[in-house]
């Protein structure tokens, strides 16, 4: 029997583990930044629902909060908000 070295089986083949920022801090991609006006916001959470980046979370008070580390500024949230509570502001 040949001597047995410890083999890390998972390193033999490309196995990836779940991680935020798989493309880095994609917030840097932005040209326009969405800003939520909490006074107008009705907490319907459609922006949370429609965000393709999962970059909107919901705080303890139920308001949507944008994660600017990753938000790419696509503008879907602002476009879909039924009460126009989100403005796209040039950065």
């Amino acid at each position, binding site marked *: *029997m*040949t001597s*047995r070295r410890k*083999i890390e*089986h*998972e*390193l*033999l*083949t*490309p*196995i*990836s*583990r*779940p991680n935020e920022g798989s493309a880095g801090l994609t917030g840097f991609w932005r040209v326009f930044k969405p800003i939520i006006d909490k006074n107008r916001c009705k907490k319907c959470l459609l922006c949370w629902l429609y965000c393709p980046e999962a970059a909107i979370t919901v705080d303890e008070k139920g308001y949507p909060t944008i994660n600017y580390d990753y938000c790419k500024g696509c503008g879907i949230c602002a476009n879909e908000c039924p009460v126009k509570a989100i403005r796209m502001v040039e950065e």
Partner: protein
Amino acid sequence: MKMVLTGNYAAAYAAKAARVEVVSAYPITPQTQVVEKLSEFIEKGEMKAKFIRVESEHSAMAACIGAAMAGARVFTATSAHGLIYMSEMLWWAAGARLPIVMGVVTRAMAPPWSIWSDHCDMLSLRDIGWIIFFCENAQEVFDSIIQAYRVAEDERVLLPVMVSWDAFQTSHTAEPVNVLTEKDIAEYLPDRRPIPYVINFDKPFTHGSLCYPDKYMEFRYLIDYSMSKAKEVIKEADEEYGKLFGRKYGGLFEEYRCSDAEAVIVTMGAISGDAKYAVDLLREKGYRVGLLRLRVIRPFPASELKEKLSSRKIVCVIDRNISLGRGGVMGVEIKALLRDVPVVDIVAGIGGRDISYVDIIKMFEKALKIVESGEIPEYLWYGVNVEYIKKAVGEYYESPSI
């Protein structure tokens, strides 16, 4: 238990004994009996397994990959065009380090259509990371498939294995075969371990995503590394099989009357049987000749072959294949090992053209003449219809100059 079985049926019995859990296969002559027999076993309840009747060979290997990633022991079989059609997925299986075992019935490629044996199909895939066995007869097919799982699933290997045998000469020729049962081999071949990974929901992972150049090369190195370790594992698996069941094949290659041989004939597959008979007749004529039957094509037993062949006066390789534009595959690979030994590479038997012991004797005597003349070509063709060639292109060379 002794049964009279064709090579194909022997393969099916071996997969059964190995407790294969998922079979995913597409029919192609001359493999069909393998999958037919397996369907029978499964539907009769003799095998606790699933049979996926896929719609193509490409899907056969894809389904094997999926099933293996989900932790199952899988088996499939194919030949020629089926093998080449699935070749994209064969690369995937090797890169994903899955211990899949596949039976390959070697058959000539079209056009024109041929169902008879040559080794070009299987050999054309020797670069991709599959371990490749080549069997001489039905008994070896049975034994090698079981050994293949043992080798593939060893943590030092974790690579897929092709077990090949010749179309019709082995696949459809019936011989007495010692068949072992699941119980007999259970200790030799325990259940598959969940390595290198198995789909699980507690610690999810992604497999096979995009990989930049700074990280890719290591995966290829690791396959190559495991290939080199596989040589030991193959030898061990064969030795232990011999101890437990009374049959072994010399590990990477089989030697017949080589110990005092000045000349060695190198063959693969079914013609090795005829070659052994030819060796006996040549010995009677006074030649000190032996036969080396190459059993494992990948990992190529470079150092072992170099050691066995370096002291000979002549090596005659019979290649039942042609790497078009370069020569016989084994001739090229063996010549690369031997600096001072004259190697005569003879290409014969393409498209199933018969090679009998008479031909082998003729080839050997021709090789002797060539070596005597001092002018050894890169390779030469044997048994070609010279008239047809002359009609087609106006001339015929036994050895095309390259």
